C-alpha cells in the first residue's frame, strides 16, 4: 500500500500527468482488446451486429479455421528461417570485422573504417530498385538467398562491434599473443566471449528488424509459398473492407503477433536495451 500512500501526497500537476498516462494506457490497450474480441466472434454475427464484440457468446472457431486453411504456418517457417539465418550471418560478419578493425593495425585501417561507416547514411529504401535488378540478373528472387543476403554487411554492426572490442583492454590478449596463439584463436577464445552483451544487442535488433521487414520481401518474394509472415499477412488483408470474415482476419493478427509479444515479455530487458542502444548508436 506504499504506492497508494505516495499517490495521495502527490502535487496536483503530477496527479494530472498520472491520470493522463493511465488514460493513454487504456487507449493503447483498447485496439488489442477489441481485436481479440473480434477474433473470438462468429463472423456472421459480426456482419449483422458489429457492436456485439464486447458481449458473449464467444467462439474459438476462427482459430480452428486458421489451422485448417491458412498458410500462416508456411509463412511463419519462412520468417523463422530468414530471420535466424540473417541474424547469425550478421553476427559472424560484424564480430569478425569489428575485431579486425579494433585489433589489427594494418596500414590504412582508419581510412577503411571510415569507408565502412559511410554506408550508415544509405537508407535501405534508396537502393531497392538496383538491388532488385541485381538479384533479378542472377534469377534469385523467390529464394531464401534473396531474402537473407541483403543487409548482412551492416555498417551499424561494424560500428557497434568495433567500439565494443576497442573497449576491451588489449592486455587481456597479450599473454596469449606472447604464446604465439593465432589471432583467430585469440578472437575465438578470449575476445568473443567478452563481447556477448554487444552481440545480444546486435542480434536482437537484427532479428526484430528482419522479422518485421516488409518492403524487401514484398518486392523479392512474389510466390505465396515464399512469403514471409509480414508479406503473407499483408496479402490476406487486401480485401478487408468487403470481407465478411473479419473475425478470421483478426484471429490471424492475434496468431501472428502473439509469439513476438510473448518473446518480448520474457526478454523485455534485453529487447528494450537492444532497440534503445541501436537507436542512439
Amino acid at each position, binding site marked *: 500500500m506504499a504506492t497508494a500512500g505516495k499517490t495521495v501526497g502527490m502535487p496536483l500537476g*503530477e496527479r494530472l*500527468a498520472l491520470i493522463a498516462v493511465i488514460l493513454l494506457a487504456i487507449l493503447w490497450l483498447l485496439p488489442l482488446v477489441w481485436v481479440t474480441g473480434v477474433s473470438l466472434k462468429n463472423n456472421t454475427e459480426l456482419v449483422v451486429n458489429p457492436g456485439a464484440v464486447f458481449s458473449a457468446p464467444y467462439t474459438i472457431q476462427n482459430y480452428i479455421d486458421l489451422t485448417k486453411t491458412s498458410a500462416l504456418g508456411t509463412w511463419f517457417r519462412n520468417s523463422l528461417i530468414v530471420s535466424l539465418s540473417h541474424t547469425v550471418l550478421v553476427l559472424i560478419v560484424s564480430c569478425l*570485422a569489428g575485431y*579486425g578493425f579494433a585489433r*589489427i593495425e594494418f596500414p590504412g585501417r582508419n581510412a577503411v573504417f571510415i569507408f565502412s561507416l559511410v554506408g550508415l547514411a544509405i537508407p535501405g529504401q534508396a537502393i531497392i530498385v*538496383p538491388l532488385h535488378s541485381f538479384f533479378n540478373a542472377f534469377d534469385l528472387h523467390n529464394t531464401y538467398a534473396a531474402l537473407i543476403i541483403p543487409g548482412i554487411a551492416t555498417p551499424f554492426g561494424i560500428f557497434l562491434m568495433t567500439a565494443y572490442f576497442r573497449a576491451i583492454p588489449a592486455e587481456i590478449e597479450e599473454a596469449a599473443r606472447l604464446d604465439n596463439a593465432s589471432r583467430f584463436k585469440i578472437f575465438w577464445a578470449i575476445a568473443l566471449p567478452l563481447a556477448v552483451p554487444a552481440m545480444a544487442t546486435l542480434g536482437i535488433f537484427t532479428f526484430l528488424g528482419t522479422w*518485421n521487414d516488409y518492403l524487401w520481401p514484398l518486392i523479392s518474394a512474389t510466390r505465396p509459398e515464399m512469403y514471409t509472415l509480414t508479406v503473407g499477412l499483408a496479402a490476406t488483408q487486401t480485401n*478487408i473492407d468487403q470481407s465478411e470474415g473479419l473475425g478470421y482476419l483478426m484471429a490471424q493478427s492475434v496468431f501472428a503477433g502473439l509469439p513476438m509479444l510473448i518473446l518480448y515479455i520474457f526478454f523485455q530487458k534485453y529487447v528494450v536495451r537492444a532497440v534503445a542502444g541501436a537507436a542512439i548508436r
Partner: protein
Amino acid sequence: MSRTSQPGARAPKLRTWHWPELLFIAPFLILYVTFLLFPMAWGFWMSFNYYDLFAGFSEYIGLENYQQLFADQIYRRAVVNTFVFVAITVPPLVILGLLIALVLNRQTWWSAVLRTLFFGSTVLSVTIVTLIWRGVYLPQKGLLDNFLNAIGVGGIGILQDPNLALVGIAVTTVWWGIGLPMVLFLAALQQVPGEIYEAAKLDNASPWQTLWSITIPSIWRTVVLVIIIQIIAHFQVFGQINLMTGGGPNNSTRSMVQFIYESGFRQWTAGFASAAAQVLFVIMVIAAGLQFWASRRKQEF
C-alpha cells in the same frame, strides 16, 4: 618473438599484423561493396537512364528523369504528404513519449506494467499493426465508427476521407512507435543525478519549476536526438501507408518511399524510381549529418 627473453630485457615487440589477418574484415568489405555501395552507385547511374525492365533495354537520357520527377504532380504531392506526415507524427511521439517517461520513471509494479504495454506495440510488425488498425478504422463495422455511432456523431470512415486518412495513419504510427521515444527518455532520466532534485526540494521549487529548470535541461540532448531519430524514421514511412490506404484516397496519403516503390515495382520505370530514390538519399544524408552533430555535442544546457 621468443618466450625465453631475459628478465629485465625489453619486451619483444609484437608484430602488429599479418596478411592472413585481413580475412577478419574481408567478408564484410566484400558484402558491403557488393550489396550496399554497388547498388547505391548503380542506382545513381540508373537515375540518368531510361530503363525498360521487361525489354531489357536502357538508354542514357541525362537529367530527364529528374525533370520529369519534379514536374510530376503526384510526386510533388508525395513530398508534401511526407513532410505533413512527419510534422503531425513526430511532435505527439516526442511529447507523449516524454510525458509517459516522466510519469513511469519510478520503481513500482504498475509503472513496469505500463512500460511493458507502451513498448509492446513496437515489437509488432507493420502488417499486424495495420491489420489491427484497419479493423479499428473499418467504416461502420470498426471500433472507431462503432464508438462514434454510439455517442451520436456518426461513423466517418477515416481512411476513406482524403482530409483525414493521413491523420488516421499518423495515429496508428504513434500507437505503434511510442515505445522507442519512451525508453530513450527513460534512459536519459535515469542519468540525472538525484542530488539536483534534493537541492531543488530544499529550495522549495514547485514540480513545474523543477521540470522546466532541471529535468528538461538535463535531458535536452536526448530530446534533440529523439526528435532527429523520429524525423529520420518517419521520413521513410512506407508500410503503414501501402497497407492501409495504398496512397489513396486521391493521392492524399502517398509518401516519397511509396512513390519509389510504385514507380519501380508497379510501373517498372526503374530509372525514374531511382531518381526519386536519389532525392530521398540526399534528404537522409542531411538528416544523418544532423544526427551525427546532435549525438556528439558535448555540453548539456
